[in-house]
């Protein structure tokens, strides 16, 4: 795969990130491209900054005051094709718009305390879609897209709190997919799930990359190698290595990456 075919959707450039009150930055000059319709995995030992980096990419960090960014995170404007720095966004509605374009799935399933239907329709309603017929269609499409339509179509009005963990996580993915985001960020989406549900989620992620670019943080090395096209290895806030997944797992150029992948530390 020649690099010229790849289109960057996002690019992190020389990013420093500091948590409020921390004496030094958690991310130290990170550079990372995110390629369109590819899955990029972020791996590394606990505390290496991979979740922090992911959470910077839709600025969900900004819910808590006092943090500082330095550097750039570019996101391609779909109309003009130009890269725009998301760290320049200031207003609440600009950030809301950003989070609808760059969605996020969390470690634990987080269904809202409402019905299955309303969980998926909620984001759409926030976008201003009010027509019942249109909503019905989009909800069905999203649930099908998240491979959960068959299990849920007869109980759309039931509370989402009663579903199994794996189903809830797929519902959360449906909820994000419904908004047709450009990028979807997964923060260890299967760490709270059993192997079968994990398999279903992985299959789903490989499926949605046709339409949505994916970045995924994972502790599970097999998951990164099975699922991703590109992998980046992080350590103590630095990006040690970024390359095609195959290269990282078979022939890493950095000694540290090799040590981590072969289980010598981490």
């Amino acid at each position, binding site marked *: 795969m020649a690099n010229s075919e790849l289109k960057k959707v996002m690019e992190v450039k020389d990013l420093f990130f500091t948590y409020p009150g921390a004496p030094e930055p958690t991310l130290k000059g990170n550079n990372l491209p995110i390629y369109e319709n590819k899955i990029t995995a972020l791996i590394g030992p606990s505390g290496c900054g991979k979740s922090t980096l992911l959470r910077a990419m839709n600025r969900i960090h900004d819910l808590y005051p006092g943090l500082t960014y330095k550097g750039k995170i570019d996101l391609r404007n779909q109309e003009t094709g130009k890269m725009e720095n998301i760290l320049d966004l200031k207003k609440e509605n600009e950030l809301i718009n950003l989070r609808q374009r760059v*969605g996020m799935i969390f470690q634990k399933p987080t269904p809202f305390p409402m019905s299955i239907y309303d969980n998926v329709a909620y984001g759409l309603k926030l976008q201003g879609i009010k027509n019942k017929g249109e909503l019905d269609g989009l909800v069905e499409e999203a649930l099908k897209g998240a491979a959960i339509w068959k299990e849920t179509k007869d109980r759309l009005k039931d509370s989402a709190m009663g579903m199994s963990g794996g189903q809830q996580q797929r519902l959360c993915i449906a909820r994000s997919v419904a908004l047709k985001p450009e990028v979807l960020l997964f923060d260890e989406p299967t760490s709270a799930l059993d192997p079968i549900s994990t398999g279903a989620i992985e299959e789903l992620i490989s499926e949605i990359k046709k339409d949505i670019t994916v970045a995924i943080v994972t502790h599970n090395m097999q998951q990164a190698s099975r699922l991703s096209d590109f992998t980046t290895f992080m350590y103590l806030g630095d990006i040690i290595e970024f390359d095609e997944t195959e290269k990282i797992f078979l022939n890493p150029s950095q000694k540290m990456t090799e040590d981590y992948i072969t289980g010598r530390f981490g």
Partner: protein
Amino acid sequence: MGGKLFRNFSFFSATLSFFLLVGIFAILFTYAQESMHTFGFDFLYTEIWEPGEDDEGGIFGGYIPIMGTLMSTLIAMILATPLAMGIAIFLTEIAPGQIVKPFSIAIELLAAIPSIIYGMWGLFYFAPIVQLLFGGNGVGLLTAGIVLAIMVIPFMAAITRDSMNTTPDVLKESAYAIGATKFEVIKDVIMPYSKGGIIGSIILSLGRALGETMAVAFLIGSVMTVPKVITDPTTSIPVLLANNFAEAQDLEISSMYYLALILFVVSFTVIALAKFYFFGRKKH
């Protein structure tokens, strides 16, 4: 050996509260018998409270104190609920970190002020303000209701805040992650998530307001008349009981037990409802 002793002791303590509850109910019920036989359910809508000549017999009806209690509590709840929700939302979602702590402590301290202090403050300072703004003669249903509201707000706000604080951060983040505003997160995620606790706090405050004696005794006017407007003085069950016990005899005493029984049943029902909500919440 020690284990067995301790077990018996805790068993005794636990059952004691249950027997107290049943015992109090039984006493109220027994002493209320005379009045219940004389007046029956007419007691609930008789507006007269008059001992007979030589303290023999007389006509007693609970309509005015019952209405006074319900009305003052209703006013208190209507005023307190939105304010307490506002305080709780402010403290959990809006206030910047540094001021959450002092505000929370202030609210908890307010909840600890003895009710007689609210009563005195209400009578000497607040009642004239109410008179100035709404007319009437200062003491009355409205003043009592407003001060009752001020008394239950801290309590209601503290419980609601604790309940809202149990909303997992990640749940709020996921709502923000699909593009919700702060207001939408509060309305669609935090409020439904903590619904059980919020309803519980309202009902517990309602229970407190129903039984409040001291502050209301200062402020409601303690007269046996049906209020025509909201600023008119009237009386409430606890106030009537506190004021009349000393000189009451026979049938009047029994009628007061009847009133106490009614208050007991209403409060008990309210608290039982609150428990039911808290319990229903835990099952999730």
